[in-house]
């Protein structure tokens, strides 16, 4: 009899432990999130930045106890070589893997848009930290971008012109690429046309990679601007500042966030002082969360300084984690629904998604002072 009792007790214990083990296996299984970007080729720096940031953030979340009461986040990375074909086939592989609940990536807009239909069809949320093409996010309800739209940033530039420089006569210089021309178009025809505090007095285009600005400068000066907004990256803004300030040292120059690079200061030297630009991420920000991120990133990746796109990839994983936590489940659809509701406070500022899946961000205003980027206190203009 006693034997039997012991046997039953043992058996029930065994069954219970099985049941328990089974239950814990379900709840303790890691949650997989994919990160996709170009890890080889010309754009490898960006894709590697995505992967590094996401892996770092997953490690931090896991060390702090994971999500949903102790589940770990596991990162699966793919190399799309920044090619549409490659991206589409990777999207199929991700869609077919039921364990993956979210995708961070695709770097270029065109590549993201090649992969997006697959994600939309099977219902898995994709957050691109970089795609800026206006049509990308409207490709479906599962398609998100954690990058600011051109028009939001361009509006920020006009605000800077008005608030910081009290600009009245603004000229625009754009690099002759899809991005530059589109940005200038939105800036001039959509945004500035609606304002009455300042006027766009002139518009000039310039070829990418050009170093002679003398004719363009003479033309720009004939419009008598007090402020020039330069829709180009640091490789143009730097030498342009050198050559323009040579003839008119009092000009106010405003750049875009993709000119935000240490290279800008190296190229413009003392003529860079006074240039202002908006940015969602500032690596020298005194804020504790940014400091922690930059320090941890530099410690893990041989002293590399994270760029704003890297910071946005880092935040993208945070958004997934927060959405999973708040939804209380790692279900693909539930995560998507929750993403529309969250307000995420990340290293690249506060963001939330609108009905399109576009992120809205708050911008820092940066000014180069004595050869260093410094933050402008917006309240004290």
């Amino acid at each position, binding site marked *: 009899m006693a034997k039997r009792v012991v046997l039953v007790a043992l058996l029930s214990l065994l069954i219970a432990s099985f049941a328990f083990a089974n239950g814990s296996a379900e709840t303790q299984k890691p949650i997989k999130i994919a990160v996709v970007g170009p890890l080889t080729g010309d754009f490898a720096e960006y894709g590697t930045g995505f992967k590094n940031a996401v892996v770092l953030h997953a490690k931090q979340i896991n060390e702090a106890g994971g999500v949903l009461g102790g589940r770990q986040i596991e990162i699966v990375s793919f190399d799309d070589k920044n090619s549409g074909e490659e991206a589409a086939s990777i999207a199929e592989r991700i869609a077919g893997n039921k364990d993956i609940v979210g995708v961070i990536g695709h770097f270029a807009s065109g590549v993201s848009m090649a992969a997006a239909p697959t994600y939309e069809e099977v219902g898995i949320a994709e957050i691109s930290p970089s795609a800026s093409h206006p049509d990308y996010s409207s490709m479906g309800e599962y398609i998100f971008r954690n990058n600011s739209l051109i028009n939001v940033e361009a509006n920020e530039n006009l605000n800077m012109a008005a608030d910081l420089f009290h600009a009245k006569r603004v000229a625009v210089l754009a690099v002759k690429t899809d991005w530059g021309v589109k940005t200038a178009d939105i800036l001039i025809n959509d945004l500035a046309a609606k304002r009455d505090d300042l006027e766009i007095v002139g518009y*000039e285009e310039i070829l990418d990679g050009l170093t002679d600005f*003398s*004719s363009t400068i003479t033309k720009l000066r*004939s419009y008598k601007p007090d402020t020039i907004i330069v829709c180009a990256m640091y*490789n143009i803004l730097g030498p342009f500042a050198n050559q323009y300030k040579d003839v008119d040292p009092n000009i106010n120059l405003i750049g875009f966030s993709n000119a935000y690079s240490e*290279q800008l200061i190296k190229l413009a030297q003392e003529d860079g002082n006074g240039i202002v630009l908006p940015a969602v991420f500032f690596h020298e920000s005194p804020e504790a969360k940014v400091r922690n991120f930059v320090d941890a990133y530099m410690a893990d990746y041989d002293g590399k300084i994270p760029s704003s796109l890297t910071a946005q990839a880092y935040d993208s994983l945070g958004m997934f984690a927060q959405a999973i936590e708040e939804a209380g489940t790692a279900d693909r659809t539930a995560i998507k629904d929750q993403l529309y509701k969250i307000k995420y406070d990340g290293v690249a500022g506060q963001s939330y998604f609108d009905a399109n899946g576009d992120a809205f961000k708050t911008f820092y205003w940066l000014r180069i002072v004595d050869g260093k980027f410094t933050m402008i206190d917006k309240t004290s203009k």
Partner: protein
Amino acid sequence: MILQQIFDGLTLGIVYALIAVGYSLVFGVLRLVNFAHGATYAFGAHIAMVVIVSANFGLFWGFIASVIVTGLMTMLMDRIALRPLRIKKSKGISALITTIGCSYIIQNTLMIVFGSRSKWFPKIFDYGNFNVGGILVKSTQVGIIAVSVALLLALTYVVHKTKIGLAMRAVQQNSKAASLMGIDVNKVVSFTFFLGGASAAVAGTLISGYYQIVNPQMGFVAGLKAFSAAVLGGIGILHGAVFGGLVVGLAESLAAYYIGGGYRDAVAFIILIAVLIFRPNGLFGKKVIEKV
């Protein structure tokens, strides 16, 4: 405003002239278009950058070092890659392709050593700006024009008044006959390459100091434009190259002003094509009679 554009265009043009002269010198002696000339120009700019910015030796030594190192580099290029072709009497097209190859080797070496990013270069001859009859004249421009004109005069003097210049002209007319007359043709060719490289180095340094920027790809478009300037004036003729350079610089500057900065590069080549239709040998070129 138009005067301003003309002045800016002439400054640009005189530098194109300096590069174009390098094409003409080599073409004159060897009947070879040296497509590595644009990369040589970028090479010269980088050498000057190392001496002036990194080693902090100042502009004068930057020029000297750039001229010597770049001149020697082009001589070496001729010695290693081109002379064997001449000895084997290979077709002209092989030498042409070889210079294109050398151009990429030089450019990629610059990228490996210095990185492909643009780098800052200090402004040269900087004594401020002054206003002459409504035209804003920068001291940098004055310096560039002065150095270029002096160098062009010096080159003309070397070619027309010195013994080595006489030898160069002799090789140009008939290298076999020149060699029979006791001229060391290889030495003359080496010297010609040195002059070409040196003038490219000076042009590269001047332009870098004007635009305050240096990068390994800077020679590509500048080289093409200078080549079209040389052809425009009649390749092989020094004053033709100078004139062609001025026309190209001026056309570019005016085009950027009146048509828009996005189209400036096309204008130089449109002019080139137009001139070649009416004067196939260039503005100053003489008809070459093929002797059998």
